[in-house]
């Protein structure tokens, strides 16, 4: 994201989100995170769970953040057959670029984590991007294929 876009976004956030709006922003973030986690559990990885290869668990976690204060969200923990755990952990609803991020990693292997960032397109739409680094070539739309590819890499 170029500096001009970043500054425009910050100005937009300052101008747009007064205290009440920040609460709406927080609730939308919680909903979006929850929807993403359920998409993963109920659609993308459902067949693995049905075959007994994965177990899903949602763990409540508290976050305290600038602008939006304290709230409770959930970490998605995916237990794999060989006692390995994949974690999808919400980190921050407000980030210095994009519109919030989660981290996806294999427990004990956080060195190779990726960021799952939300980009708000307009009031109704957003998209999730998976980013291994700031390099545009290391970023892609987050979908079933990307998630499966990552898990495969981590299991090698």
């Amino acid at each position: 994201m170029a500096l001009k876009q970043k500054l425009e976004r910050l100005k937009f956030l300052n101008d747009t989100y007064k205290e009440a709006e920040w609460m709406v922003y927080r609730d939308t973030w919680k909903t979006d995170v929850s929807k993403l986690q359920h998409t993963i559990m109920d659609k993308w990885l459902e067949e693995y769970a049905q075959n007994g290869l994965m177990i899903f668990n949602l763990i409540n976690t508290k976050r305290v953040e600038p602008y939006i204060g304290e709230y409770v969200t959930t970490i998605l923990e995916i237990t794999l057959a060989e006692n390995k755990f994949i974690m999808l952990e919400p980190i921050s609803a407000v980030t210095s670029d994009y519109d919030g991020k989660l981290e996806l990693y294999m427990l004990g292997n956080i060195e190779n984590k990726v960021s799952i960032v939300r980009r708000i397109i307009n009031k109704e739409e957003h998209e999730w991007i998976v980013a291994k680094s700031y390099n545009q070539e290391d970023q892609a739309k987050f979908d079933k294929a990307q998630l499966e590819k990552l898990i495969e890499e981590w299991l090698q």
Partner: protein
Amino acid sequence: MVTINNDEIRNTYNYLATIDNILIKEISQVNGNKSYLDKIVPQQIARVYSLKEKTALSFTDNLTRTAYENSVVHLVATFERVAFSKYRTAYGKIKSVVADQVTKPLDYYKSRENFVNGNIDKLSGLIYLIEGHLSSDLLHKLKLIKDHRNYIAHGKRDTAPPAIELKLSEMAKVLDDVIKEIEC
């Protein structure tokens, strides 16, 4: 392999990268062998985190996160030391030239000296001074690093974290490139 020209930044980066390397090697031993953790932690916390596989792995992940955050703060501290020392040197030269040429000291230089040595937030002040001389990409990354450092150093309360973290090597390269620009 990243090339870093400034001696101080290179040394700091080399130390931090080595610590990171040691950490990765040690942590890889814990995977599938949780009791290995007891060999690397202080004796008083032996068997505290190593009884369950999941607890041991969470501990090593937090260890990695802590090491990275410490590295961000340390690397930026080194950068500040180098950058401000270069600014002061440059200021000293300018001041002596001005003193030779004018009868009354210029307020501009007085305020510049006060600015550099004063109580203004150091890194923000520095960015303000040099932003016109950096490419937009370099400036964007420098501000990203500043925000990230502030986020960690101020207890993750007042500022937002970056959406995507820069690798330590990328961070060192950006800071080195900024020093290079100051030297030009």
